[in-house]
């Protein structure tokens, strides 16, 4: 929870009116990152699927932008936000097990999560791994191309090492296509519209907060 905008109480004092979930900076980060990922996927895969155009310049420039965004996010998450919100602990693993069991028909009680539930945290971990893989290898691959700022210098690594770097970039890129499709499904599902709305407006209603979260695990 950020301290910039205090949560507002309703006039009658009947609980919270609005509960801030994402600051403007974090929402801007999320949507800029999404834009970068879409441009990177389009410039990478449309030519492979047969739609040819000059993709490389748009691709590497957007790639450098994504690298900068991700770096800012990591610094913010570690030093300015509460990294424990995204940390996967034993409670989360137990919850994941119970949620799966419930989906399969068990009647175990529903425990309310903190700011992010176990599935969201696991998803974040997966996205972080593939995005960091594509950013790390992508930055190295800049050595293989000519730009206005530097000449290509492919001799830093042996041909075999370059092969491995390209394999990682390629596999992570295809995994990103899969994670984006799954992400679209879960965020467009009517059950999670309130989360999509929160990534646009920044807040959820007090009712949504009470309904979906354990206030001792996510202190508003």
């Amino acid at each position, binding site marked *: 929870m950020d301290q910039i905008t205090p949560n507002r109480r309703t006039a009658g004092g009947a609980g919270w009116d609005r509960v801030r979930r994402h600051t403007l900076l974090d929402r801007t980060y999320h949507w800029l990152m999404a834009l970068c990922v879409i441009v990177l996927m389009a410039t990478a*895969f449309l030519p*492979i699927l047969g739609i040819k155009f000059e993709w490389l310049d748009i691709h590497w420039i957007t790639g450098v932008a994504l690298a900068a965004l991700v770096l800012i996010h990591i610094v913010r998450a570690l030093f300015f936000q509460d990294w424990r919100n995204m940390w996967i602990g034993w409670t989360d693993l137990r919850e994941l097990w119970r949620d799966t069991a*419930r*989906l*399969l*028909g068990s009647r175990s009680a529903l425990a309310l999560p903190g700011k992010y539930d176990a599935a969201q945290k696991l998803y974040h971990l997966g996205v972080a791994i593939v995005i960091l893989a594509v950013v790390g290898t992508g930055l190295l691959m800049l050595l293989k191309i000519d730009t206005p700022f530097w000449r290509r210098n492919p001799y830093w690594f042996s*041909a*075999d090492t*370059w*092969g*491995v770097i*390209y*394999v990682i*970039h*390629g*596999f992570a*890129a*295809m*995994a990103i*296509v*899969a*994670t984006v*499709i*799954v992400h679209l*499904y879960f965020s467009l599902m009517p059950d999670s519209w309130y989360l999509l709305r929160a990534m646009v407006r920044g807040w959820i209603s007090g009712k949504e907060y009470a309904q979906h979260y354990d206030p001792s695990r996510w202190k508003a």
Partner: protein
Amino acid sequence: MELFRYSRSIYGGSDQLIGASWDLLPWFVGAAVLVIVVHALLSALAKWRARHSA
């Protein structure tokens, strides 16, 4: 099905690894669609069960 792409050496040497094989792309898309379909079916079933057990 190939997992990797190789370039053939014109000098007759061994093939050089150059990247992932794009034949795999449909499998990644398929895996994502499978996750969606399984989740949608299970949650529809869970809702149905909740409604008919009251």
